[in-house]
């Protein structure tokens, strides 16, 4: 069962004594002597687990909404190429440091046949290894979907055309939920393509500039609206476009 409570930095979340070998602590929680304390403000999440399977009774972590991204393994992010080197590219992923994307880590890429990215290109990729004190490693290889980069149907890779906007991390993550109101409501009225990066970047592409601008504005506005108001906001924008 999921429970949520708001915590501030310095709040004691658990003690070592009651947690030893039973609980797993994730991001936002740190050890301070006998106590486990929150180091960020956010929602404390507690998820119970089947202890007989994994040996862990409960997982705890803190969800905080920030503007700066903290790289985490297996996050899907949108990076901007800032440097092009012989063997790899450096990408800005809105984190404390840049990310490194090897030139060959694309599906079906070989030394003779690999994508050529320019400075300023947008790349949809995953964080394969994140480090606290070094640049994180990124990859455009998918673990499940094996279509080559040349076919244009690979999951990861360069995002061509379209328009990108930046929002806060928490909001971008909420767009990934299947029941998200904005994405679904827009989909009922328009056909469009969207890529959401866990680092707060959202890329949109549709068949006309006006539609793309509408979608970008709708997504930006919905960050501060109740779900009930979001639908009417989108309907008003659509009416304005068509009328």
């Amino acid at each position, binding site marked *: 069962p999921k429970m949520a409570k708001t915590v501030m930095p310095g709040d004691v979340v658990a003690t070592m004594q009651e947690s030893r070998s039973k609980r797993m602590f994730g991001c936002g929680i740190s050890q301070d002597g006998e106590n486990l304390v929150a*180091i960020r403000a956010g929602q404390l999440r507690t998820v119970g687990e089947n202890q007989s399977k994994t040996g862990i009774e409960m997982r705890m972590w803190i969800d905080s909404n920030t503007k*700066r991204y903290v790289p985490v393994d297996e996050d899907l992010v949108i990076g901007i190429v800032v440097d092009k080197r012989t063997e790899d590219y450096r990408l800005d992923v809105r984190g404390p440091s840049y990310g490194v994307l090897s030139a060959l880590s694309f599906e079906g890429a070989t030394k003779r046949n690999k994508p050529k990215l320019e400075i300023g290109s947008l790349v949809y990729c995953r964080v394969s290894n994140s480090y606290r004190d070094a640049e994180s490693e990124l990859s455009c290889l998918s673990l499940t979907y094996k279509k080559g980069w040349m076919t244009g149907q690979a999951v990861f890779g360069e995002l061509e055309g379209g328009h990108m906007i930046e929002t806060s991390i928490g909001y971008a993550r909420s767009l990934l939920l299947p029941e998200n109101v904005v994405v679904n409501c827009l989909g009922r009225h328009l056909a469009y393509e969207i890529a959401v990066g866990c680092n707060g970047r959202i890329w949109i592409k549709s068949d006309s500039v006006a539609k793309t601008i509408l979608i970008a504005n709708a997504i930006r506005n919905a960050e*501060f609206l109740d779900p009930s108001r979001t639908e009417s906001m989108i309907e008003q924008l659509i009416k304005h476009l068509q009328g």
Partner: protein
Amino acid sequence: CRSPNRSGGHVRMRGMACEAGGLGGCDGAARLSHGGTTSIAGIVGPREAKASSRDSDESRVVVHVSAQGGGGWRRDTEEVVRQTLEALIMRSYNPMCVIDVTIQPLSDDGSSMAASINAAIAALIDAGVPLRFAAAAVCCAVMEDGTIVSDPSREQETKAVGTCTFVVRIPNEEIVSSIPSGFVQEKSYLAAMEAACSEAHIVSAFLRMAMEQKISRERQCWGDV
């Protein structure tokens, strides 16, 4: 809200206001007021530091205060604020990075230093910078008759024998920093320190409330992520 003044040796704080977020170019920001004194703080970081100023174990903290006409800010007070925030921030979390803190006092009706430090702390929390503990700054003035006034107005500050801004760790009331001015007796200084410790709980609880409002509004708009 305004708390009524108590008779006796200790005069309590004015009402506070705080607004988190809102500055476009920053990762975290806060605008905080004690009565008529307002300060705004913006945080950019943690982000990669230049090669010449990198520290392989910890992040560096840089504080800029843009105070027009002084207002009690000098290079050494900037340095004390930097050391205070360094004690508060968990620096080992982001080695090779720099955290830029910019503070701007907007209006000064007394206790400007405390408002500025509290704004910086609120902005750090808003930016999601990892912090070791909760802390709050309180300014206390010692008057001629020995009364301690917490969060003095400008008028009270000019009449005081001395003032001191304390940064207190919550909940165990350890003093993180003390920024004094003027000349007071030892027992007055210790009384001011005690007053600051008790008021710091209120400031910290207020910051918690301000953050909770922001977080619950986000939950309401975005659903339970």
